[in-house]
């Protein structure tokens, strides 16, 4: 029975990747494209982690602190596991749609819980593998393992996801508990998630600082032992230290067991108890009449701000963009002072660099991409209403522009002011930002229309999975990386030329996609009815 449950959970996870395709040909194409993207991503991670590990291995050899290689890898992989699985944990354990169906069957609740945990553990292992495996291979090649080191490396690899899963269960539980009692669920969920994530990153960062110090061989090892868990993992893997392995295992197994024990005992209560919320009584209509188009835009905005998953997965670039701009603004004066006379020579690059920051961070904004998939089973409302498909598509685009433009422009202004960019160049920087925001919106909408995913049960699937989301993010990132490369070269000739590279191509492509959307795109939207 447990085997069947685990099998169904895993097949459901994979099925969600290719759902929404009406025939075998489309399914094959979508699967092929997804595999290609996964291969690219895995190759990218393997290469990046391999390169980093290679450098660390040589540094470790010079300083004798070889464990730093593994300490870094464990820090990065645990952050990736936590960030990558926390929402899956929240939806799988606490908000799963099939809880009631499964509970009505003669299945012990413990089995339901275990099957979900095993599926989540597999996600954690996958995420961990892309970081840890290249590191372990590089270590073996460059440094070579101690007799016990290799075995302990495997043990640490197998144990680490238990800790990240326990942490993500705890965080997801706290978020679900608080959110279920409060009316403004989305705001609370987003806020708590950011707080937990920043807290965790701070923790990792402070330990990472020690690791950074190891690289410079400037720190006393006895002090490093106080960094606990990550150091013990590194020490066990690199030096085959039994004590470090035991301490690491203790730190992983005890909290994992406690979390498992508590959740197992409370599982039925958690999934069957409905928290009472304050009922809002309707007291007359205060809504004003809007135009059909205005109402469509308002609907799109309402959908965005009602979903924490949508905000965090599709609008995170906005937050990162502003955060990065503020960070650069604060640290820029020190940097300028440090550069001294060299700063004058580099000044021609400053407007280009300011644009790069906003453009690249903005490419992570995918507000328009899942907007068509999110119609899901409610698509009939728009398709049976007397609305021109062009208005529907443009409303989705407007929502993207309304959400992304102000913060991107504010970030550009902050950077221009902090870096002392003159008014003329500042205007060009803002133009580059506007052009990139328009491009990401159009590109995302185009892919969302071409590769929609309607048969989701949980909106996370529409927001996070599928070719449209992957293609939108990595496609626009790749496009902007190429532009940044070309722009950088041209900036050596002229600052304006460099900036024009960031302005013109996205604007031209946006115009091309716009022309498609208002013609063929409308037909494509009409034909979504046959899916």
């Amino acid at each position, binding site marked *: 029975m447990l085997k069947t449950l685990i099998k169904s959970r895993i097949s459901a996870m994979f099925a969600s990747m290719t759902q929404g395709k009406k025939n075998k040909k489309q399914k094959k194409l979508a699967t092929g494209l997804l595999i290609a993207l996964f291969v690219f991503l895995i190759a990218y991670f393997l290469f990046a982690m391999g390169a980093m590990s290679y450098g660390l291995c040589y540094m470790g050899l010079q300083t004798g602190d070889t464990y730093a290689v593994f300490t870094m890898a464990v820090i990065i992989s645990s952050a990736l596991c936590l960030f990558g699985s926390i929402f899956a944990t929240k939806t799988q354990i606490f908000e799963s749609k099939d809880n009631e169906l499964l509970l009505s069957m003669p299945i012990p609740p413990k089995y339901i819980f275990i099957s979900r945990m095993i599926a989540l553990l597999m996600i954690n292992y996958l995420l961990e593998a892309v970081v840890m495996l290249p590191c372990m291979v590089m270590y073996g090649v460059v440094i070579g393992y101690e007799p016990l080191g290799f075995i302990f490396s495997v043990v640490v690899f197998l144990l680490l996801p238990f800790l990240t899963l326990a942490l993500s269960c705890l965080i997801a539980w706290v978020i679900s508990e608080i959110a279920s009692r409060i009316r403004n669920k989305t705001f609370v969920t987003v806020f708590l998630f950011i707080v937990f994530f920043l807290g965790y990153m701070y923790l990792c960062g402070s330990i990472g600082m020690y690791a950074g110090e190891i690289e410079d061989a400037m720190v006393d090892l006895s002090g490093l032992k106080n960094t606990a868990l990550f150091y013990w993992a590194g020490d066990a893997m690199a030096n085959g230290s039994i004590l470090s392995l035991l301490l690491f295992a203790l730190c992983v197994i005890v909290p994992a067991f406690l979390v498992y024990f508590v959740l197992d005992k409370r599982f039925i209560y958690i999934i069957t108890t409905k928290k009472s919320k304050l009922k*809002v009584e*309707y007291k007359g209509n205060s*809504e004003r*009449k809007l135009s059909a188009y205005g109402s469509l835009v308002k609907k799109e905005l309402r959908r965005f701000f009602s*979903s924490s998953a949508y905000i965090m997965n599709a609008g995170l670039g906005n937050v990162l963009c502003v955060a990065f701009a503020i960070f650069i603004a604060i640290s820029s004066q020190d940097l300028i002072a440090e550069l001294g006379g060299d700063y004058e020579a580099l000044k021609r690059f400053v407007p280009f660099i300011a644009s790069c920051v906003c453009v690249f961070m903005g490419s992570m904004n995918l507000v328009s991409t899942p907007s068509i998939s999110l119609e899901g089973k409610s698509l009939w409302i728009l398709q049976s209403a007397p609305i021109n498909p062009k208005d529907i598509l443009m409303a989705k685009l407007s929502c993207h522009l309304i959400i992304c433009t102000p913060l991107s422009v504010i970030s550009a202004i902050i950077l221009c002011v902090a870096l002392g960019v003159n008014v003329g160049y500042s205007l060009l920087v803002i133009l580059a930002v506007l052009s990139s925001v328009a491009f990401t919106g159009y590109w995302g909408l185009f892919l969302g229309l071409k590769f929609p995913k309607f048969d989701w049960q949980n909106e996370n699937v529409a927001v996070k999975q599928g070719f449209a989301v992957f293609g939108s993010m990595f496609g626009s990132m790749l496009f902007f990386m190429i532009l940044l490369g070309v722009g950088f070269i041209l900036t050596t000739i002229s600052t304006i030329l460099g900036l024009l590279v960031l302005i013109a191509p996205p604007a031209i492509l946006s115009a091309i996609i716009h022309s498609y959307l208002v013609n063929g795109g409308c037909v494509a939207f009409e034909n979504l009815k*046959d899916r």
Partner: protein
Amino acid sequence: MLKILNLTKTYGDKKAVDNLSLHIKAGEMFAFIGHNGAGKTTTIKSCTGLLNFDNGDIYIDGVSIKDDPIACKKKLAYIPDNPDLYEFMSGIKYLNFIADIYGISTEERNEKINRYGDMFGLTSDLAQSISSYSHGMKQKLAIISALIHSPKLLIMDEPFVGLDPRAAFLLKEEMRKICDEGGAIFFSTHVLDVAEKICDNIAIIKDGRLVISGKMSHVKGDSSLESVFLELEDKDSTFGKEWDNA
């Protein structure tokens, strides 16, 4: 008001609707009956512009849905079998969204929201999120949103599923009223008693093909609709028999 001419719709090799023709006149309440998978929902979705079809045409008040879908959609309202509404909205926000789409004035929408909200006992819940609604409440909200723009043609797929007895009664009353005021209603149902009691005309479909259609009294004769339906379901060779205007 609604004219379906030689409608054919295929899914792959399967003909879901095969050369179906029906005519629903103004003032008529028309029931559409058939077994599960007979092609009722496909026909209804084709009429509302939710589905492309392979052959034939559909006219709403004389306008082809192929030629001018927006003009057709302005005249009709559709209530699906499963009311999948915008769960991120509250009931009142959803109704205002629909009212905006159909360009209903503030006064008119307020009057209708209050009237239908009170009628179906939903007014006090209108500020709640639709995600907290039961199936029946969602169905009531879908009905109110359909009635809010006074459609000339009301197309419904299994409209009584999930409704409590009082709401079902009120819906029947409202349906009669629409027809008495010159509108038309085309709906599918498995509740044969309801169809028998309230409908003027009926069509029975089997495996995508029209088995019989016409005035209720002519179709059922002296028997009950249930026995006629079961008898026709068992037969294979009575396709296309039309009793209309008999």
